[in-house]
């Protein structure tokens, strides 16, 4: 438990940008009862201990009335009396426990989806009740056929069944009826059309049988059918619900907010898309720039990695163009807005992505492909049965209709409707426990076909943050001094220094010169830690230029300058994962927006033969499309903004949870934590799931092939229909459950 907790905490530390306090403020709401409320999305909460840790810590805060963590959705609701500003403290308290938390607006999450799922569940309940009770009555009727139940008693039981079944079908069948009606009105057909026709006809025919005191009524079949189908439908919507929740989470995570400087003084925080071109905005260090613009004042360095894949921060000053999505590292910048929303580079990437996604949107899930042929075939068979019985055999048309309805009931895609959702829910649950979130319902199917894996470099194969290299060759005293100074800075490289030597005390009197470095005045003179040109200013003896990679220089009076070089380290299991993929026969490629020498080095370390460097988003997309045209099914793994279009263009895609929002939105799967091995797990589970789905398809179609002829020759009684239907449904669910039991 503690180990798990620690692991999660480590994950949290890699979150690219923690929510800033003022971000939290914007999400504090005033409740009707006078209390303040805040909703947070908590990462890393996994068990009961997490619940009580978080809730108890919050309840100890004065004024807190309620704190409740929903473990299924990872949402935390806090309500308190007092000041609005307490929100930031409460948020900090949660993060202090080691759970990264992001504020969100619950109103925007009130999607119709949750209500729809509740409605489905209500339908399941009603159908279940009706199915159980009608079945009890039907058992009496069936045994009555064998013994000697009088037509009067049978009629009574049929009437009772009708009384239960008809309202239940009318209520619980709505999801299918509305969907079928919508499809018919649009001139198309879907799986719900045969279901609706079958259920309605079965009920109508049974009612007429009951009125005519006939021996056979199919009320039990109609209701049981609905019950099973609704379960399938509910599972399906749960699987999609997971996906939807994930997407919502990503969209809301760090919803871009911009600090606008009013012309007559003062600042306001507004959403990025509400900023008008021409306004001046303020970007604090550590904040992501929300607009495209030009720097008015301030010098700083920008982390462009999300936009261009470039791992080295770029120095910028007044007059320079900046793009939305870049991260301001050193000091505050005033930026004149040139473009917002639709016009930004960010949106350009978004558009590329949409284009690519439309192309992929044409992918049709296996179940839909099957059902496309299913409905016409079923209806033709039923019609054929009716015609043959009435015209050829010459029975009265009611009997013909009876047999035709039996065909419809038997072929109702009960098992088919359960076969895929059951496997999907179990597979996505299994992946969720491994920290992999499946976002797209068809992701599993597409993953199973993958034969090529394309990786991005920065943040995907590598950790995505600079770490000190050659730590052993740096004198300990210099490192300690530098780390002690670096304590007072939030610069990425300074953080890297502190991470390399965490046990030092912060030094007093350190001044940060924005865009340059840190300055400490001592009795012997100035100590400088920062950019090469600035730190070595006035020092004699130029040191040779190293390779272009992130570095900080330490200049002390009377001692030679010391350099600290940084490098983006590979993920720990990157090599093992790439090897394992290659061993399993996948072609592995590396596509990076970074410079060739850096990319070549990483490719060499990992033994990736196919790599390309310096590729921009358009080129990445083009490359993936070319691979697709060669008939390859590509899994793209990437995290940057520049990867987003490529992620959308690939056959299927995955992102680490540290990726840019837009990439996570584009990706079909998101994996948490430091392990790249999640990709292996993803592929393995997908292949197993695919196998099970196909088995289930074969099972349910095979059952139809056996049962339909029986129905057509009129041998299927309500009893046989009920037995075959239930058993085939249980069979496919049981088969799907095998996926949950397989542990590796």
């Amino acid at each position, binding site marked *: 438990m503690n180990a798990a907790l620690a692991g999660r905490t480590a994950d949290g530390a890699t979150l690219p940008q923690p929510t800033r306090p003022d971000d939290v403020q914007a999400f504090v709401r005033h409740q009707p*009862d006078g*209390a303040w409320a805040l*909703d947070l999305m908590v990462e890393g909460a996994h*068990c*009961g201990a997490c*619940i*009580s840790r978080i809730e108890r810590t919050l*309840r100890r805060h004065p004024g807190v*009335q*309620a*704190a*409740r*963590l*929903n*473990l*299924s*959705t990872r*949402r935390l*609701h806090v*309500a308190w009396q007092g000041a609005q500003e307490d929100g930031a403290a409460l948020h900090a308290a949660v993060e202090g426990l080691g759970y990264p938390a992001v504020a*969100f607006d*619950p109103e925007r*999450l*009130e999607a119709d989806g*949750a209500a729809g799922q*509740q409605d489905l*569940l*209500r339908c399941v*309940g*009603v159908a279940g*009740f009706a199915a*159980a*009770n009608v079945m*009890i*009555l039907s058992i009496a009727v069936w045994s009555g056929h064998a013994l000697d139940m009088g037509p009067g*008693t049978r009629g009574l039981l049929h009437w*009772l069944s009708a009384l*239960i079944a008809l309202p239940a079908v009318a209520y619980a069948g709505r999801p299918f009826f509305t969907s079928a009606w919508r499809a018919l009105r649009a001139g198309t057909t879907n799986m719900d059309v045969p279901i609706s026709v079958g259920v309605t006809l079965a009920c109508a025919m049974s009612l007429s049988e009951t009125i005519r005191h006939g021996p056979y009524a199919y009320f039990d079949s109609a209701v049981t059918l609905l019950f099973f189908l609704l379960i399938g439908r509910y599972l399906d919507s749960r699987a999609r619900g997971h996906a939807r929740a994930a997407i919502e989470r990503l969209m809301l995570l760090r919803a871009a907010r911009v600090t606008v400087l009013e012309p007559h003084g003062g600042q306001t925080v507004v959403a990025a898309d509400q900023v008008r071109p021409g306004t001046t905005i303020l970007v604090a260090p550590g904040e992501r720039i929300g607009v495209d613009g030009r720097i008015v004042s301030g010098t700083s360095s920008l982390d462009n990695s999300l936009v261009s894949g470039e791992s080295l921060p770029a120095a910028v000053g007044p007059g320079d163009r900046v793009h939305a999505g870049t991260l301001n590292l050193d000091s505050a910048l005033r930026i004149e807005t040139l473009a917002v929303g639709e016009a930004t580079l960010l949106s350009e990437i978004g558009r590329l992505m949409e284009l690519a996604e439309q192309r992929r949107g044409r992918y049709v899930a296996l179940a839909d492909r099957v059902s496309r042929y299913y409905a016409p075939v079923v209806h033709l068979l039923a019609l054929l049965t009716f015609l043959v019985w009435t015209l050829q055999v010459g029975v009265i048309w009611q009997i013909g209709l009876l047999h035709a309805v039996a065909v419809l009931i038997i072929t109702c895609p009960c098992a088919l409707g359960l076969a895929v959702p059951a496997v999907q829910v179990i597979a996505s649950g299994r992946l969720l426990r491994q920290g992999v979130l499946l976002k797209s319902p068809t992701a599993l199917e597409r993953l199973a076909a993958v034969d090529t894996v394309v990786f991005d470099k920065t943040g995907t194969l590598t950790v995505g943050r600079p770490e000190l290299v050659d730590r052993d060759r740096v004198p300990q005293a210099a490192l300690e001094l530098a780390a002690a100074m670096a304590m007072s800075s939030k610069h990425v490289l300074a953080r890297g220094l502190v991470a390399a030597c965490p046990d030092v005390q912060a030094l007093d009197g350190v001044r940060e010169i924005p865009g340059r470095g840190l300055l400490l005045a001592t009795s012997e003179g100035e100590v400088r830690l920062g950019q090469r040109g600035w730190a070595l200013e006035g020092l004699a003896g130029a040191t040779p230029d190293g390779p272009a990679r992130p570095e900080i220089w330490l200049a002390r009076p009377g001692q030679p300058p010391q350099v600290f070089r940084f490098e983006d380290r590979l993920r720990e299991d990157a090599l093992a994962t790439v090897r394992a993929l290659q061993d399993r026969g996948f072609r592995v490629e590396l596509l990076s927006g970074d410079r060739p020498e850096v990319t070549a080095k990483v490719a060499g370390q990992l033994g990736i033969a196919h790599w390309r460097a310096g590729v921009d988003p358009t080129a990445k997309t083009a490359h993936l499309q070319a691979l697709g045209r060669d008939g390859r099914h590509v899994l793209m793994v990437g995290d940057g903004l520049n990867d987003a279009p490529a992620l959308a263009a690939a056959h299927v895609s995955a992102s680490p949870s540290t990726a840019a929002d837009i990439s996570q939105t584009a990706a079909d799967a998101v994996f948490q934590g430091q392990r790249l091995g999640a990709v292996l797990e993803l592929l393995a589970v997908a292949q197993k799931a695919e196998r099970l789905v196909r088995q289930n398809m074969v099972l349910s179609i095979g059952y139809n092939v056996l049962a339909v002829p029986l129905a057509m020759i009129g041998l299927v009684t309500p009893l046989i229909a009920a037995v075959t239907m239930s058993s085939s449904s249980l069979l496919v669910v049981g088969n799907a459950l095998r996926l949950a039991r397989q542990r590796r």
Partner: protein
Amino acid sequence: MSIIGFLIPIALFLGGLGVIAFIWCLRSNQYEDLEGAAWRILEDEDEDEPPGEGPDRGGSG
């Protein structure tokens, strides 16, 4: 056979109670957080407040 005159209404009544209870559970958001509920039952301490108060909005209520 007159026994079924009692048994069937009783069966339907009991079953109906089940459905009503189910819908009540659904309405009062008891299916909101199945995972959390499984853990909460292991809590030794009582919560400081009745669970239905306020927080059951839980973000998606």
